[in-house]
């Protein structure tokens, strides 16, 4: 077990096709290799060389698990897999929580692309320090300086070149390290032997100039370096310290380069990972104290404190369910008792393992900062496990509501069983994925964050669970809301034998002010003088909450409403909790129509990227979909259009876009907000809803 300052938890994030897999493989390869060389030397003092067979085998390694532990020099690095697509936002965000730093991989030709922008936005939100690696410098059209400039311009990062390439495209030979001012070449059959040499004559001037630039940029976040420059006593150590400080403070993004495919530049990148990215003690992690109104508490990387652990990913293995965990505070030993703070279930830690690239290692304990996996724990992804003395939650209980739903029909009995198994599994893994059986149509409905999100699960059902299912057309999850204030004064009275029911409530409902954060419901009690006894007030609240679960226009939940009660009456004998709840429910239903209800629809933030020649088609396609163009950015031949488009108009957009742009454009989307549906469309929706209900009642 390594000490905590020698641990790194990193993610590798990249746009599709920028070479994330190859880079990950190389990282595993070199780190294992170094490890192996180390061991062999220790035993017999003779360095080992690779034979080609072994190389082939080693190259076959891919990161198949959610977290892989590798050793570089004497540092323990956990490489955490980050899913790429934005439809899986919650998964991305959960994995971002777990990592302390990241390597942003960019293609030296394509540069900063739409997905890099989305991922970068998420990293900023979670304050993840990062270093950049410009990959594929061996490709035609490679231009690392241009990519560095895009990091500055498009992402607003203070990107600083730490290296310059020796040759580019076919002539890529190595890199110049601007700190040591040495050329680095990567010799041996797979680049595992580093050869340091003088900088080639023709690159000296450029290297000098870029070093100046680098020092200027770095010195802005380090007084120590600034002084050293003025006094002309800059040492490598001072620069390293300054880069580390700036990177962890998110003031700086050091940029490295090379070609994973050509085995160039990986080892210096690994040095940078351990050198510049933070260890777990240098990152502030917080939890919410569920016993204290979700007060934010700072966790300490101290193994003597009670344990706080996040289960961030579930995986079905041959030995049962594997739960990947990160320990934020305290330590974990086999046999320890933990409590799942969501389900309130206690359990004992059975098998504890660490995942390596090619093997699983049983361990007896893991300490704060570390990533490990547990076997056979019944839990959902994102659950927090604590020492029984604590009741903390690492993730907010807030989960974005699904925006889209899809009805499924299994082909036969066997498929139905398998589908049920699959759905049970998926809902555990992904809190943004829901499923229920519709009471009216008796169909299984799945809900999620986007068309692709659901498609992927349907595909997984087919492949992994052999469940053959038919799908209907996806449906948008609308919301209902009120647009003006309406007053009510409602008396609920029932006198049919036995004890009667009586409750009168008066007040009004009104729309909540539009703010950045969408609030669903607010209850205000303005009752004075006890005209409704305090005991019955929560029942009124409950009644309203029941009422907003399903609106009368489309049968979707009502959001953004404030219910206020300011008068009422009760009866000493006949009033009850139930009576007031019923009164509130009925009062709301009666008032709803007078409050001019409207329908809200999910609006997606859509980013389309493609060649400039298709810009007109892209604009046109957004315009046809009731979209609003927010911005368009052109950079030479590429353009990127950002827009807000109603989700209902986005079905099948990928096919349309492909045909409009000869397959050269791509798009991403995520939920931006809910907005009012234009009247013409809401009338149509209401008509269809009534029609559907009539049919169902007719059945």
């Amino acid at each position, binding site marked *: 077990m390594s000490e905590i300052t020698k641990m790194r938890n990193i993610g590798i994030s990249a746009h599709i096709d920028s070479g994330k897999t190859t880079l990950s493989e190389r990282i595993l390869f070199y780190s294992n290799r170094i490890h192996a060389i180390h061991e062999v030397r220790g035993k017999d003092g003779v360095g080992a060389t690779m034979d080609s067979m072994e190389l082939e085998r080693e190259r076959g390694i891919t990161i198949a698990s959610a977290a892989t532990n590798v050793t570089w020099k004497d540092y323990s690095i956990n490489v955490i897999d980050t899913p790429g697509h934005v439809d899986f936002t919650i998964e991305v965000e959960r994995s971002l929580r777990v990592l302390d730093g990241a390597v942003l991989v960019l293609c030296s030709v394509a540069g900063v692309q739409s997905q890099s922008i989305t991922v970068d936005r998420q990293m900023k939100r979670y304050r993840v320090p990062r270093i950049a690696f410009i990959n594929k410098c061996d490709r035609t059209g490679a231009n690392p300086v241009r990519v560095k400039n895009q990091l500055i311009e*498009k992402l607003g990062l203070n990107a600083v070149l730490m290296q310059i390439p020796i040759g580019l495209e076919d002539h890529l030979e190595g890199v110049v390290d601007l700190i040591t001012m040495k050329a680095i070449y990567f010799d041996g059959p797979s680049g595992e032997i580093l050869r340091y040499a003088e900088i080639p004559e023709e690159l000296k001037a450029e290297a000098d100039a870029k070093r100046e630039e680098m020092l200027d940029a770095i010195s802005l976040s380090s007084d120590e370096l600034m002084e050293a420059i003025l006094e002309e006593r800059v040492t490598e150590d001072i620069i390293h310290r300054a880069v580390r400080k700036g990177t962890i403070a998110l003031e700086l993004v050091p940029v490295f380069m090379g070609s994973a495919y050509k085995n160039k530049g990986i080892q210096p990148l690994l040095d940078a990972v351990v050198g510049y990215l933070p260890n777990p003690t240098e990152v502030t992690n917080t939890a919410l104290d569920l016993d204290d109104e979700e007060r934010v508490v700072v966790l300490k990387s101290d193994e003597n404190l009670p344990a706080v652990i996040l289960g961030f990913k579930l995986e079905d293995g041959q030995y049962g369910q594997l739960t990947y965990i990160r320990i934020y505070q305290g330590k974990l030993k086999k046999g320890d008792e933990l409590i799942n703070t969501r389900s309130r279930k206690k359990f004992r830690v059975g098998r504890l393992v660490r995942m390596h690239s090619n093997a699983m290692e049983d361990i007896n304990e893991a300490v704060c900062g570390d990533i490990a996996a547990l076997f056979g724990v019944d839990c959902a992804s994102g659950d927090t496990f604590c020492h029984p003395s604590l009741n903390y939650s690492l993730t907010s209980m807030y989960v974005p509501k699904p925006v889209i739903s899809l009805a499924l029909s299994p082909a036969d009995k066997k498929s139905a069983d398998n589908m049920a198994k699959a759905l049970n599994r998926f809902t555990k893994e992904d809190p943004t994925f829901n499923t229920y059986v519709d009471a009216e149509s008796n169909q299984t409905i799945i809900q999620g964050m986007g068309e692709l999100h659901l498609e992927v699960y349907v595909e997984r059902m087919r492949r992994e669970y052999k469940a053959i299912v038919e799908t209907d057309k996806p449906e948008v999850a609308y919301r209902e809301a009120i647009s003006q204030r309406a007053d009510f004064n409602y008396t609920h009275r029932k006198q049919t034998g036995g004890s009667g029911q009586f409750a009168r409530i008066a007040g009004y409902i009104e729309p909540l002010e*539009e703010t950045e954060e969408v609030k669903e419901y607010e209850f205000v009690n303005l009752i004075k003088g006890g005209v409704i006894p305090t005991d019955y007030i929560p029942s009124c609240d409950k009644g309203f909450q029941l009422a907003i679960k399903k609106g009368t226009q489309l049968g979707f939940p009502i959001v953004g409403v404030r219910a206020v009660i300011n008068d009422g009456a009760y009866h000493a004998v006949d009033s009850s909790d139930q009576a007031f709840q019923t009164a509130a429910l009925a009062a709301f239903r009666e008032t709803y129509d007078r409050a001019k209800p409207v329908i809200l629809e999910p609006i997606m933030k859509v980013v389309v990227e493609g060649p400039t020649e298709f810009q007109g088609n892209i604009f046109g396609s957004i*315009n046809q979909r009731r979209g609003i163009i927010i*911005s368009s950015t*052109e950079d030479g031949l590429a353009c990127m259009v950002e827009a807000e488009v109603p989700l209902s108009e986005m079905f099948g957009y990928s096919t349309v876009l492909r045909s409009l742009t000869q397959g050269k454009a791509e798009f991403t989307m995520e939920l931006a907000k809910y907005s009012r549906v234009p009247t013409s469309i809401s009338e149509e929706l209401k008509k269809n809803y009534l029609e559907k209900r009539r049919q169902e009642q007719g059945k």
Partner: protein
Amino acid sequence: MEIQELNALSPLRAFDESLDGGLGKGNLGVLVSRHGIGKTACLVHLATDKLFRNEHIIHVSFSGNVEHVINWYKEVFRQISENRSLADAASIYNEILANRVVMNFSQENVSIEKVLSSLETLIRQGSFNADAVMFDGYKLTVATEDDVRKIKQFAMDMRLEVWFSVSPVRSDVQFDENGVPSTILRYEQLIDVLIGLKYNEAMDKVIMTLVKHGESMDPKPMHVNLNPKTMLISE
């Protein structure tokens, strides 16, 4: 305050008055000064005022960072709506956003033909009926006369107002007493409105001078200036 009242009380009414009712479609207006005086804020304030009055705006920037431009709009909107306690500010903001597109050209030395053709694509294929185009940071001082002529023609063809914020590119440029660099004077005949911005230390205000208006070349102080704290146009 309701939006109509806010518009009536806006210092931009005094600004328009100085221009006898505004720049007018088919015309070019230029805000010019040294770096760091607040031209972008001024331009965004002009644009926001138009958005408040239901006009459609294209904001053209050359910085590469769209987020930055959008934040300027957010900030200017926030200041105006808070100063005037605008009713229902959040929904008004969402509404006016639909009438603004930011177009960004991050490639260095992009040609004016390219910029104009992209604008035309947006207006025609994107069905975006722009009333005004705001060029933020266009290097007008080093553009050729032909470039400026093309922009003028575009403004007339598309029937829209074009505003520029301009700072000189070269560091050795001479400024006159109104903050106008000599390099802009080459196209004076093509510019319909030229406004110089200059910081006055004694008043702690950025003074706005109407240097050229139509055929008149007689510099007149405007009834508005720029508040260096809020960076907004004020009376």
